[in-house]
């Protein structure tokens, strides 16, 4: 929505060109885009929770309550393959990042439905465990925090390559207590060899059942970067506009100064840890989507019926994907060994795909 749309005061109310949050603001067009992806993300999670309960799938994990931060992140990624582009070292809550980057919902559903066509894992891994080479999405592993030790490696290649590629790494608050979080700071900040790692922590105040304040003396996790000279900030990750700008600052710092930046984002956990803990809707947590929709309504950017239409469109798109996924092939016994080893000219036993013990 171009700024020409701004109406002089007193005239017919037209939506403003920018939506405000505190002292920051963001263009209406971007807000609409963020909102649309947030809705799609939320609906996708909700549909997957349903699948985990209906018996269509065994397990659900995802990021309801993190849509604002994750979508804003996904939209700012420079996506592509190789060190000229951003690398993504994600964990199991980053649905919104991939949705923001433009992942077809069908691909997410395929992983949930454990089809052979699941491009991320061929039905092998849990949902939200992405792997996408053409977008530099490093295979997500369930092992907490190991992504933090890999990010400096890809950042090293990016720095050496030249350009503005950034290695983004993200995980939860409890996970920062693994030593790998410290390693990430150490390896990103070596004197004269600083690396463009955007170190992100989504703090939802919980590790499964364990409250943050019961284990963490750190008032702010982001403070841990100070001793290493790592710049950073704390942001309300439930505020899409604030998140957008914090991430923009982080990206700018990494892209131009080729040094690390750390952001701790306060987010919500709206459906508990995972389907293992029931995945019921939690009370008392800020809902970033509801909050953003209120802002969009209050700002006159969207009408209630427009919001409803966006929700419906998302639901329809997802329903179609679920239908489609159900028709697709499942892995069979023949798929057990594939992709264990890459073909190799210097291997006399497995020059091609793996077939079990050497024979």
């Amino acid at each position, binding site marked *: 929505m171009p700024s020409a749309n701004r109406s002089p005061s007193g005239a017919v109310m037209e939506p403003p060109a920018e939506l405000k949050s505190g002292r920051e603001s963001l263009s209406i067009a971007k807000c609409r885009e963020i909102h649309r992806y947030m809705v799609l993300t939320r609906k996708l999670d909700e549909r997957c929770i349903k699948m985990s309960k209906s018996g269509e799938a065994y397990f659900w994990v995802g990021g309801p309550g993190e849509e604002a931060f994750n979508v804003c992140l996904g939209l700012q990624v420079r996506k592509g393959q190789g060190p000229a582009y951003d690398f993504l070292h994600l964990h199991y809550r980053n649905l919104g990042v991939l949705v923001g980057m433009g992942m077809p919902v069908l691909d997410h559903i395929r992983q949930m439905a454990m089809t052979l066509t699941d491009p991320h894992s061929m039905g092998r891994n849990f949902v939200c465990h992405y792997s996408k080479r053409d977008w530099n999405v490093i295979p997500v592993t369930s092992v907490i925090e190991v992504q933090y030790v890999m990010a400096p490696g890809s950042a090293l290649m990016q720095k050496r390559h030249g350009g503005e590629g950034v290695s983004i790494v993200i995980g939860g608050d*409890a996970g920062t207590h*693994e030593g790998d979080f410290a390693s990430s700071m150490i390896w990103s900040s070596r004197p004269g060899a600083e690396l463009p790692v955007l170190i992100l922590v989504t703090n939802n105040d919980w*590790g499964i059942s364990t409250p943050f304040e019961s284990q963490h003396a750190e008032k702010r996790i982001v403070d841990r970067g100070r001793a290493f000279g790592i710049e950073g900030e704390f942001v309300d990750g439930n505020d899409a506009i604030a998140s957008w700008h914090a991430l923009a600052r982080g990206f700018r710092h990494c892209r131009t100064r080729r040094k690390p930046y750390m952001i701790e984002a306060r987010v919500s956990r709206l459906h508990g840890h995972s389907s293992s803990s029931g995945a019921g809707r939690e009370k008392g947590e800020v809902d970033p989507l509801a909050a953003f929709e209120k802002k969009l309504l209050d700002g006159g950017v969207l009408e209630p019926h427009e919001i409803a239409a966006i929700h419906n469109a998302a639901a329809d798109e997802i329903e179609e994907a679920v239908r489609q996924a159900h028709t697709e092939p499942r892995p069979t016994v023949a798929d*057990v060994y594939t992709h264990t080893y890459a073909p190799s000219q210097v291997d006399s036993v497995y020059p091609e795909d793996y077939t079990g013990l050497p024979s």
Partner: protein
Amino acid sequence: MATLVQAVRMALHFGEEHLGVTDVFGEDVGPPLGGVFTATQGLRTAWNSPLDERGIIGCAMGIAYAGGRPVCEIQFCDYGFNIIDLLKVAGNQRWAGAGQFDMPMVLMTPSGSGIRGSLYHSHSFESWATRLPGWKIVMPSNALDAYGLMLSAIQDPNPVMVLLPKALLRVRGENPLPGEPADEDALKQMIDAPVGATRADWTPTWPDLKPLFIPLGKGSLVREGTHATVVSYGRLLPLCVQAADQLSAEQGLSFDVIDLRSLFPYDWAMIRESVLKTGRFLTVNEDTEVTNFGEHLLRRVTDELFYDLIARPRVLLGKHVPGIGLNQNYEMNEVPQLAEVLVAMREVATEAA
């Protein structure tokens, strides 16, 4: 009857009250959750730790050095691969330190497949664990053994790892624990934390449990027969028993089925005696098949009983693949299931001598 996980919980309670357990801890081990499998609900000394497996093992070692008796948990053995160095130190400190310090720590962790857990909730740990000299390793296959092995693990002054078969945690025992109430609903009321808001105020009512120490190093002969010896433990043990019963009923083949229970030290006398009787040996586990603990057992049999064997000794193991896939067409074809156990047992019993 109590489930296996209830038996673990009751053993830990007995340990707290009578065997000097000072700390039961790990990720989500304390209230409100009491463990992702409920193993530690209601325990007096249970507490939540930081999300840091290295810290957990280190803290347990420090507690043990300072005179405590810790039971720590690694939430899934799948997350125990960054602590092998610490486990090694726990296992070698006594030898290295001229025997000055005991290390009475227990590490418990769910192991094995069978809960549709995909790559990181399906690992087996025994082939790693048995490579740790200085440690003792046990793996119960039923509630009563879980109780009796846990008490011995606590009592033993050495580090003991208790591998809990993930897939069997909710299976009820066939024999009561000493002091277990007869009514399983009553037991549930007493020791299972309620779901929902009332949990915050809940305290358990513990039955009047009695001690049962199943000696480390003692197997259990759960079926007796003549056609072959089958050694297993954990998730696969009940399948071996089921297969033995089926093959007995359908084909008149009878087996010595040994529940090893204690993986190190293992009951070599029991294995030896059985193989001397049957002349045929099969061991079954679900860990990956290259450098697998079952291969050690086969080697021992070959070392000492080669000329007593009347048929090829064999193993039935998990495949050498990087993970267990979520879609059950992966899992079912990667680790042994009943069908493969039946085939392997029939073959070892009937192969022409």
